[in-house]
């Protein structure tokens, strides 16, 4: 409950249950209408607006700018993030971190990221 209230208020968090805010310049990637976890799509408007919701700034443009201001994790936007585990929707990423439930990696993915 505390996680939901603070993260929703501060980052407009969508409770994906597998938080990667440190890799996204503290811009929640689940606000991206395409739920992209590895960077912006090719549809970003010339003014930096979202393709799907033009009046909203692209989450990943904000992520890039945010990442330039971070003292740590600046290079984390270059990491390849694994596919979303949709079972964790609406669960607590803090709890999942402690229980290691957010550590599930598909076997095939493990083979290539070793």
């Amino acid at each position, binding site marked *: 409950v505390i996680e939901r209230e603070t993260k929703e208020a501060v980052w407009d968090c969508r409770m994906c249950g597998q938080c990667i805010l440190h890799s996204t310049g503290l811009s929640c990637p689940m606000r991206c*209408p*395409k*739920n*992209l*976890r*590895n*960077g*912006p*799509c*090719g*549809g*970003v*408007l*010339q*003014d*930096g607006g979202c*393709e*799907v919701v033009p009046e909203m700034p*692209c989450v*990943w*443009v904000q992520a*890039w*700018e945010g990442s330039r201001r971070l003292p740590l994790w600046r290079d984390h*936007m*270059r*990491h*390849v*993030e*694994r*596919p*979303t585990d*949709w079972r964790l929707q609406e669960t607590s990423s803090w709890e999942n971190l402690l229980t290691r439930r957010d550590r599930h990696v*598909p*076997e*095939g*993915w*493990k*083979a*290539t990221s070793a």
Partner: protein
Amino acid sequence: VTGEPRSELHRLLLAGEFVVTAELQATDSADPASVHEQAELLRGKVDAVNCTDNSAAHAHVAALAAAHLLTDAGIEPVMQFACRDRNRLGLQADLLGAAALGVRNVCCMTGDDVGAGDHPEAKPIYDIDAIHLLRIARIMRDEGTYLSGRPLSVPPSFLIGAVENPFAPPLEFRPMRLGKKIEAGAEFVQTQICFNVDKLRLFMARCGDLGLLDDVWVLAGVFVPRSARAVRYLRDQVPGIDVPEAVVDRMESAPEDRQWDEGVRLALEIVEEVRAIPGIRGLHLMSIRNEAGIARVVEQSGLLPRPATVPARIG
């Protein structure tokens, strides 16, 4: 990038050939002849033909079917896979099925949002993103398993491609995003339509700084406009394309019966400039129902005849 060629396009790239691909006009017909008619317009002009996947979020005949029909006709397809319409099960099933039907080049992308199409009320899928899909294609090919780790009895063999848009914000991040795509599995990349050559030059220079250009073949996207209306359409209706006002003005200032020629001239100038950019290894030509324009551009660029290719056949 080395190794045994997985496709004719791959063989040409390995041989250092400056390659040419183009997009097949997607059809809305249950008659296979409609795909063949479109394909014939490009035969002999390009090395491989992209079969789009519900482009601009409009339903069309399946890319898998079009690619199969092309293979049958002896024209090598590049089959596009968008993450918009299928989850990871559907995408893997189609990757494997495509390989079984003779597809030897795949190109992975996120896909335009459903809001851009004629079914804006549809549920967009986006279970995985383009980078996940690239890695999954790589896992299937190189590890011989599905994403889950479950083994394939015969793994697919294809050249894996991606798209990138060097013209959309955040411009500084775009080269790094290409780096992620290469790390995930991309071996070639077809760029979004280039009208702004300065931006492409900067993008390529930065990719060079990042050491990416030895690991990927970059095909520059060039549009051959049939009319001023076509460039206005790109500017107003297709998100993510940088169409400078000068381009629109130039097309509009030509009289209507001369706009086709002006479009060819414009494309030829862009082709000449992008060919001079270090690291550009080919062209990816696009149009809206202007295959004749594409053919003219290939011819006048001195890129004909295309080298002989022997596309895969089934059986």
